[in-house]
């Protein structure tokens, strides 16, 4: 496995792990309070839609010329990665609320209790919420699987990394039977944002005709550099926020 392929597998695995943890919270909330069978039906339907998206778009994307693919997909990945990284830096610096699975579970459970239940065996609310939750969280994963996989013509490897992350989260969910609040989600999102941005930069520049000094090794430098810059930005924002709070003098 090459360095780029290893990077692909790690980035997809971590991104999928985070999204799967969020989807699990939603499914647990509606399943535990209303109907497990309807919630699982929603999960199955959403998974089928996501698999169809990856299976349908994967071969189409990989058939494009490599430089066109790297320019378009690298650019998209860079925009998408910067969005993740921006949110992660704002969370780490205290300017945006941290994602809290326990709080999210409590919210979803309260809403699920409040909605009236049909008398039949099938619960449309559980199905719809589980379907929507898995589809929305999964679309980000499908996007990452497609962009990373198509760029290296390894959609299968990317899908396998995503599948491994989902299996791990499902097994942990079955064992714990509660939201996986101890998974360091915000830290993982920070790391995934750095990787998406670095890969996006690397591929977009190659697609635009630039040559990286050191070829693939430049990717490691980009990841390390983006990590250092991002941490420096967190420190800068924390200092700015503290400085902007007016100091109170005792009366």
């Amino acid at each position, binding site marked *: 496995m090459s360095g780029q392929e290893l990077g692909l597998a790690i980035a997809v695995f971590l991104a999928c792990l985070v999204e799967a943890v969020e989807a699990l919270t939603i499914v647990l909330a509606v399943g535990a309070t209303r109907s497990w069978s309807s919630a699982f039906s929603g999960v199955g339907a959403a998974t089928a839609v996501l698999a169809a998206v990856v299976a349908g778009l994967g071969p189409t994307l990989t058939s494009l010329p490599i430089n066109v693919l790297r320019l378009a997909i690298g650019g998209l990945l860079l925009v998408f990665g910067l969005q993740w990284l921006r949110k992660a830096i704002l969370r780490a610096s205290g300017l945006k609320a941290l994602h809290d699975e326990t709080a999210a579970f409590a919210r979803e459970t309260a809403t699920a209790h409040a909605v009236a239940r049909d008398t039949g065996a099938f619960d449309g609310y559980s199905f719809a919420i589980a379907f929507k939750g898995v589809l929305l969280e999964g679309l980000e994963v499908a996007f990452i699987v497609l962009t990373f996989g198509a760029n290296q013509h390894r959609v299968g490897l990317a899908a396998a990394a995503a599948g491994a992350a989902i299996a791990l989260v499902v097994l942990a969910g079955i064992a714990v039977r509660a939201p996986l609040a101890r998974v360091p989600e915000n830290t993982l999102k920070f790391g995934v944002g750095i990787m998406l941005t670095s890969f996006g930069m690397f591929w*977009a*520049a190659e697609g635009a005709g630039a040559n990286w000094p050191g070829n693939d090794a430049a990717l490691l430098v980009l990841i390390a550099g983006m990590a250092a810059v991002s941490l420096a930005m967190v420190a800068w924002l924390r200092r*700015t926020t503290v400085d902007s709070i007016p100091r109170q003098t005792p009366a």
Partner: protein
Amino acid sequence: MRTIKRVALAVWDFVVGDDWRVALGVVVAVGATAVVAAGGVAAWWVPPIAVVALLADSLRRASR
């Protein structure tokens, strides 16, 4: 028509997100990289500088 608009808005929100200036900046940066590379000059340094500048600017505006 309403469905098309909703889908377009969802795609925009999914890819571009909270700050459209970052997306526009990325398009300009990738274009600039292509122009510099086409001129036969090393162009690998353009995206990293652009990314750091775009991120810093977006965070500065978000923190106001």
